[in-house]
């Protein structure tokens, strides 16, 4: 743990491994975005900054499992771009993952707010 305090990026990498699907799905909620736009948005935030080599294969996996869909679209003279959007399955998955994420944060907050030495109180009391 001491290493993680010295280098927060290691902690971020571990956290991202478990939360990246949730991050991508939440970013696509109500938006149609192409890869470079998605990457730009993710890199705006300190803990969600990922590389191209992580993003595109993940989009491919989410597309294969039916969580997102993709369509090529060209506007005017610009280069054609592959836009991603949430499917119905993806929206349901986002709802489920959001619930689990919030439950997880709530549990960790509970632990942080109740340090020792006394015994951990029952939740909700």
């Amino acid at each position, binding site marked *: 743990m001491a290493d993680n305090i010295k280098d927060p990026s290691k902690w971020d990498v571990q956290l991202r491994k478990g939360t990246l699907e949730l991050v991508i799905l939440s970013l696509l909620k109500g938006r149609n975005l192409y*890869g*470079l736009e998605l990457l730009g948005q993710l890199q705006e935030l300190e803990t969600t900054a990922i*590389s*191209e*080599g992580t993003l*595109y294969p993940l989009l491919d996996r989410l597309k*294969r499992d039916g969580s997102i869909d993709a369509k090529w679209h060209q506007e005017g003279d610009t280069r*054609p*771009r*592959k836009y991603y959007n949430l499917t119905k399955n993806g929206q349901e998955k986002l709802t489920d993952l959001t619930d689990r994420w919030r439950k997880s944060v709530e549990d960790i907050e509970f632990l942080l707010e109740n340090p020792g030495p006394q015994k951990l109180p029952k939740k909700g009391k």
Partner: protein
Amino acid sequence: MSDREMVRDYLNSLMKFLSRLDKEDADDVLREIECHIYDVMEIRQENGQIIDAGEILRGFGQPRELASQYVDHILEGAPPPMGFRAIQKIKSGTTKGLYWTTAIFGYLFSAVLVAIGLLKTINPDAVGVWPSGNGESVVIGAMSRIPTDTQEILGWWIIPIALGLGLGGAYLTKRILNVLKPKAR
């Protein structure tokens, strides 16, 4: 090497490592990555920044590693078809030689069967199945000399049987080749 040459080399290499995907899927992956790279290069140019294709490509990682993330699900994700489990076990060690040997013999055998089925309609007397060696073996095929001491046993049934087995053999060969396809090195 110019930026465009560097990008072209990267995409060519990626294409090689994506060879296990269907061509349409592989082309889609390449097109998306190519568009991303040139979009970033254009944005940098418009902003007066240095266009460093090498740096952009580093974001994607090595072509082999990037491709493996697209391809690995084919090797690990889908369960093998019934009866293909033994082939799945040995596929990682498959050589090009085994792949091409299977392809040649599989398709050749299928083509011969289909040809027999079709030839029966052209030359019915010369094509058939004859018992031989006192019934201990059979002769199948298109004969230049029709056996006289024995009776052909399948008649017109040889057409659907040969065509069915030939087409079935070709389909099976295709499925086996999909599994055996050597990994790009």
